[in-house]
């Protein structure tokens, strides 16, 4: 009997978590650390790409104090209010891709789509980092 896709994706997520845990906890020698390339890896990659940018954007928009689930929407709205339309649009795209990656098991994540998402994340992160207050020279 065919296993449901949800089962495969769920197992792949756990598989990746275990691989990382095994490497970190030295259950395996560092030289033998390996990561299996599959949907679980691509989906995790997209999800982390979104959260990396979201966390930075939440800081820039002074919304770190706001602990409700709709903080994701609020951050995007605040970016628009700050005139950062391009950053808001790209963060929204990352949000959509993250939701697909984490919830839609019937959507096939390709390595190309994963690459594009990571490129978007890098592009947005660059723009956000420019907005960070510069530290005083040492």
């Amino acid at each position: 009997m065919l296993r449901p896709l949800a089962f495969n994706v769920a197992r792949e997520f756990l598989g990746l978590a275990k691989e990382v845990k095994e490497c970190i906890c030295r259950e395996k020698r560092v030289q033998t650390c390996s990561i299996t390339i599959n949907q679980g890896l691509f989906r995790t990659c997209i999800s982390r790409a979104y959260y990396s940018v979201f966390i930075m954007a939440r800081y820039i928009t002074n919304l770190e104090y706001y602990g409700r689930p709709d903080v994701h929407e609020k951050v995007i709205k605040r970016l628009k209010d700050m005139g950062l339309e391009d950053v808001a649009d790209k963060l929204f795209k990352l949000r959509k891709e993250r939701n697909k990656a984490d919830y839609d098991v019937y959507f096939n994540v390709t390595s190309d789509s994963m690459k594009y998402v990571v490129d978007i994340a890098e592009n947005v992160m660059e723009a956000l980092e420019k907005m960070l207050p510069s530290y005083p020279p040492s």
Partner: protein
Amino acid sequence: MQIPIGSFQLTQSEIIHKEIHRYMELTSQTICETARESLILFIKSLMKMIPHLPLIPSYRALELLIKKNVSGFKLARFIKDSYSVFEKEKLIVKEILLDYYEDVEIKGWKGVSLIFRVCSNDYRKLLEIWSKISKSKPEELRDLFVEVEPC
């Protein structure tokens, strides 16, 4: 441009006309007369501006835009101007989608995305053009999200 559909060969423009007809029928059954007129005006403006435009609007997206009182003419003008940016860069826009979005985790968060599917693997260039288009979005369309993706 010829697109095979079953045993028929329909041009892109014929497909769009069929879609428009379908949306008009749906709209007339479900939303008020003014909204319907606004929708028709939007589609007509676009068809006039770019007759070969590969536009695929989702019915729910159009409905949400109308509810938010988005100016059909402003939207049509923005789509046309954005399309021209890709043309200037000699990039082929395969599809333009007006896509409805509802967040799976946050209740009540819905929106509309204008998605340009562009035939290019030059991600850096796509991201640059995306920024340019987003920044040129008029104030009246600030609720609309713009996306550029490779196809």
